[in-house]
C-alpha cells in the first residue's frame, strides 16, 4: 500500500464509522419537517441548513450516506456473485455455454438499460414500505450490473481451464463440480474480490444518476442521488455552498474506493 492508498483507506474507515454512528449523531429524524424554516442556511439547530420542506439537511445527509454506502456494496456483492458463477462456469465449461453467456453479455452491454429501468420500476408493487423500495432499487441495479465482470472472469477461467494442474486433477478423476469449486474458484478468488471492489463505486454512481433522473430511491428516504436532485439550480448553489456537501462526499468516497483498488492489472 502506498501512502495515498493509506490515506484513502483511512478516509473510508472514518466515513464508515460515521454511518454506523449516524443514528446517534443525527440531530433530528430525517423526514421531520420544520415548516417555519424551509430553505434555511446553517445554524446551530441545523448545521447544514434545511431543504425546501424544512427538513434538516445534515440528518438527511447522514442517513443518505448510510443508505448509499450500505446498499451499494450489497448490490456489488450480488452482481459479483452472478458474474462469478456465470463467468467461471462459462470459462470452465467452454463450448456452446460459453458462447451463449458471452453473447448474452454482449447483448446486455449493448441494451439501453436506462429506458428499460423505467418500465421495470412501473412493474413493482405499490404497498411496500420505503426501506423495501430502496432495497429493491439496489437489487435491480445488482441484477443488471454483472455484464462487465463476466467477460474478465470468463477469460481468466478459460486460462485456468487450460492449466496443467487442472489437467492433472481431471486425469485423477475429479468430478466437474468439485473441479469448479475446489480448483477453479479459489484461483479466481482475487479476481472476484477485485471485481467486487470495483463495482462498489460504480453502483454508488449509478444510484446517483438514477435518482437524479427520478428512477432511484423514493422520497422521503434520502440517498446521495436524491440529495443531488436540487443541483439544477446552480446560481442558488453559489449562494448556498453548503448544498455541495453531498457531492463532495460522494466524489471523495468514490475516489477513495478507486484509490484503494487492488493493482490496476487485475482490474483490466
Amino acid at each position, binding site marked *: 500500500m502506498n501512502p495515498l492508498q493509506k490515506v484513502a483507506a483511512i478516509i473510508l474507515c472514518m466515513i464508515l464509522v460515521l454511518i454506523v454512528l449516524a443514528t446517534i449523531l443525527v440531530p433530528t429524524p430525517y423526514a421531520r419537517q420544520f415548516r417555519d424554516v424551509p430553505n434555511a442556511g446553517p445554524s446551530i439547530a441545523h448545521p447544514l441548513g434545511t431543504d425546501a420542506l424544512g427538513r434538516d439537511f445534515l440528518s438527511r445527509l447522514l442517513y443518505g450516506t448510510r443508505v448509499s454506502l450500505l446498499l451499494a456494496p450489497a448490490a456489488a456483492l450480488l452482481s459479483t456473485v452472478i458474474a462469478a458463477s456465470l463467468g467461471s462456469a462459462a470459462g470452465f465449461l467452454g463450448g456452446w455455454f460459453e458462447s451463449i453467456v458471452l*453473447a448474452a453479455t*454482449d*447483448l446486455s*452491454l*449493448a*441494451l*439501453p438499460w*436506462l*429506458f*428499460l429501468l*423505467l*418500465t*421495470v420500476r*412501473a*412493474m413493482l408493487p405499490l404497498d411496500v414500505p420505503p426501506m423495501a423500495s430502496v432495497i429493491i432499487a439496489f437489487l435491480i441495479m445488482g441484477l443488471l450490473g454483472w455484464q462487465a465482470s463476466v467477460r474478465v472472469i470468463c477469460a481468466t477461467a478459460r486460462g485456468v481451464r487450460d492449466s496443467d494442474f487442472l489437467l492433472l486433477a481431471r486425469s485423477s478423476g475429479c468430478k466437474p463440480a468439485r473441479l469448479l469449486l475446489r480448483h477453479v474458484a479459489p484461483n479466481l478468488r482475487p479476481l472476484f474480490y477485485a471485481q467486487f471492489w470495483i463495482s462498489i*463505486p460504480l453502483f454508488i*454512481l449509478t444510484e*446517483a*444518476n438514477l435518482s*437524479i*433522473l427520478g428512477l432511484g430511491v423514493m422520497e422521503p428516504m434520502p440517498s446521495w*442521488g436524491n440529495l*443531488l436532485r436540487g*443541483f*439544477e439550480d*446552480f446560481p442558488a448553489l453559489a449562494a448556498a455552498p453548503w448544498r455541495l456537501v453531498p*457531492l463532495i462526499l*460522494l*466524489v*471523495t468516497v*468514490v*475516489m477513495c474506493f*478507486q*484509490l484503494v483498488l487492488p493493482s*490496476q*492489472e487485475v482490474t*483490466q
Partner: protein
Amino acid sequence: MIKQEKASKLFRNVLRRLLFLLCLGIGGALLSATFVRCAPGFGVQERELDPRWSAQSVEALRQEQMLHEGLASFYLHYLVALAHGDLGESDSLKRPIRELLRQRLPVTGNSVVRGLGVAWLAAALLASLGLGSRGWLCEALGTAFSSLLLSLPSAVVAMLAIHVRAPVFCPISVVVFPRLHRYIRSLLVRSYDQPHVLAARARGLGARPIFWRHVLPSAAPSLLALFGVSFAIAFGAAIPIEALCDSPGMGQLAWQAALSRDVPLIVNVTLIVCLVMLAANSFADLAGRAFAENNE
C-alpha cells in the same frame, strides 16, 4: 495460395461475425420491445385523462392502441417490413421512423465523434505528459484530475453542461476522458517497460525515436482496441446525456419512446443502439485478438 486461403477464411469469419451481430441486435431489439410491451402502461395515453373526450372517442383511442396487441404477429410484421427496408411509423410521434432516425442519428453521431476526439486528444496528451515529464507532481496531478472526473456522476456532468450551455459533446468527452486516460497511461507504461524498449533506452536512443519506433508500434493494436471500447463508452454515455440535456438526438428519442411506450420506435432505436455498441465492442475484440495472434 496459402495467403489467398487465409484471406478467404478471414473474410468468412468476418461475415459470420457480422451476421451474428445482426441477429444479436435484432434479438436485443425484440427483447426490449417485449419488455416495453409487457410493462404496465402499454397502450395507455395521457390524453385519456382529458375530460373533453367523449366515451366513444376514448374507446376508439384504446382500439387504436390495441393494434400491437399480438406480440408474435407484431414481430413477424416488423421482421418482414425490416427485410424490405421499412422501419414502420412511430405511434407517439406519428412520423415514419426512418425519417426520425435520419434526423436524429447525425446529431448523436456528431456529438459522439467530437466528444471522442476531444477526449482522445486530452487523454493522450495528459498521459504522455505525465510519463514524459517523469516528475511525480505532474503524474499525480494527472491521475488525480482523471479520477476526480471519474468520480462525478454523469448526470451531474450533464447538468453542469446545461448550466454553462456547453454543447453535448463536452459532457460526453468529460465522461470518456478519465477512462481513456487510465487505459492509455497503463498501456504506455507497459510498453515502456518492455525489454526491447529498456534496451533501446539503455543504449541511449532519444526519447522521440523510442516513442515513435518502439513504444507506439507495440501499443498500437491495443490502442486500436481501445478505440472500439471508447466508442462504445461514448455512445453509451451519449444516450442518457442527450436525454438530460434535451439534445435532439437518439437519446432524447429513446427516452421519449420509453415514456410513451412507443413499441415500433423502441424496437428500432434499440436495434440501432445495439448494433452500434456491438459493432464497436467486436471491433475492439477483433483488434485485441489480432494483436494476440501477432504476438504469437
